[in-house]
């Protein structure tokens, strides 16, 4: 036990030759499903008649053997081993009446499905690769003359389009004066800083930031602007250590209180 460095042969039991013969070539595996497929193939030619329980045992044995000879196994091989151990227990234990989790049979059926699907794809891959392939088995004309397309552009335009273009051009060059940039009512950051500054020292308890908005903001846009700038101002005072700011849940109210008061000390 202390020295497991013995050769692979040391754990090769005549009755279980399956796992070992693959171990020699662990680098050649394309993941745990690949190993399972090979084990299953060894079990039966017809994948629809394999024993998943037996397969699970063989795989666990395979992993155990690999660890015994200290082969580095990628994590997904170990994840599969853990899953198969779980599957094995589900298959051996009487089915529970939980109803929530899939039964052992369902898990086994799903694994069998995946194995068959992988095998099918693998089979198709080799069928595809053995097809007569252009450039390898069949050949296209070596000296195609090519078919030339000579493109000629015919421009289409009509009077309507022309007039529209002229009108659009006119509107652009002469109509500019008609447009003015509207000044939008804004409660500026400076306003908010000033307003909040007067109040920051007098907030002993958590109070909604909403309370500090300037009153009588009937204009929707202006009140949004005020909220934004007041929030920014609150962030600034928080940064300066004059305020504390918190929000207890996403989209919940923003709460502030005076830091000086809360700490009960002054500088």
């Amino acid at each position, binding site marked *: 036990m202390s020295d497991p460095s013995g050769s692979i042969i040391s754990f090769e039991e005549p009755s279980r030759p399956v796992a070992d013969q693959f171990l020699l070539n662990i680098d050649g595996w*394309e*993941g*745990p*499903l*690949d190993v*399972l497929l090979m084990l299953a193939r060894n*079990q*039966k030619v017809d994948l*629809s*008649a*394999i*024993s*998943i*329980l*037996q*397969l699970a045992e063989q795989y666990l044995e395979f992993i155990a053997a690999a660890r015994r000879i200290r082969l580095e196994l990628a994590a*997904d091989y170990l994840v599969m081993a853990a899953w198969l151990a779980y599957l094995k227990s589900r*298959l*051996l234990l009487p089915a529970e009446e939980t109803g929530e989790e899939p039964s052992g*049979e369902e898990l*086994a*059926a*799903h694994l*069998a*499905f*995946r194995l*068959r*699907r*992988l095998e*099918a*794809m*693998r089979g*198709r*891959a*080799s*069928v*595809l*690769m053995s*097809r*007569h*392939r*252009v*450039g*390898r*088995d*069949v*050949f*296209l*004309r070596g000296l*195609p*003359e*090519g*078919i030339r397309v000579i493109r000629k552009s015919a421009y289409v335009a009509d009077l309507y389009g022309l007039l529209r273009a002229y009108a659009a051009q006119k509107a652009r060059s002469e109509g500019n004066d008609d447009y003015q940039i509207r000044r939008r009512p804004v409660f500026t950051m400076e306003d908010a800083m000033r307003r909040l500054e007067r109040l920051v020292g007098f907030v002993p308890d958590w109070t909604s930031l909403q309370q500090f908005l300037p009153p009588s903001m009937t204009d929707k846009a202006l009140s949004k602007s005020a909220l934004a700038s007041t929030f920014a101002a609150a962030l600034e005072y928080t940064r300066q250590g004059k305020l504390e700011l918190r929000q207890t849940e996403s989209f919940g109210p923003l709460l502030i209180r005076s830091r000086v008061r809360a700490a009960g000390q002054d500088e």
Partner: protein
Amino acid sequence: MTEHLEHLRMVEALLFAAAEPLDEESIVQRLPGHPEVGPLLAELQDMYSRRGVNLVRRAGKWMFQTAPDLAFLLQQEVQEERRLSRAAQETLAIIAYHQPATRAEIEDIRGVTVSKGTVDLLMEIGWVRVMGRRQTPGKPVTYGVSEQFLIEFGLESVKDLPGIDELKAAGLLDAEPPDSYRLLPVDEADEDTEEDVLLPFDDPVETGRG
């Protein structure tokens, strides 16, 4: 009759000259009078079927190519083809049979992470292309095979992939086992354990041992 022969000559000339497969519409457009080309193509295909050069339909388009049985004659010119890794071969097959397929779906089937390089390589060869995005969270890119793939692998369309109907019927192109999926065919299971038909350890597999 003469006109018919002339049309045959013209289709022949166009397909010989073209550097790539032509669809029927392009052929029609080029022929004077725009005759129906379906019968002309069928006739030519038959005429050339026993020649050293065959007329074939690939990806819905028509082209001439050398007869497959003469491969031995022509192969000496071809330089050693780059062999695809098994991973790349499988990925290609999965994309072809399951398209549009996301990387996650490919990985689910192979049971192993698909390295970015594998799909990239297939795209670089020109056999795989991005088809679109799956409308699921994360909007993953979906892959499919290209027209070039169909041409090079001698397929009229993905519907002609070898065995695709059988795979579909067996539910093996689905993401999940079909409802009717049974691990064991009923007749192979023990008859006295109706309840346990699904149980894999009822499998009389041991009897197969020598």
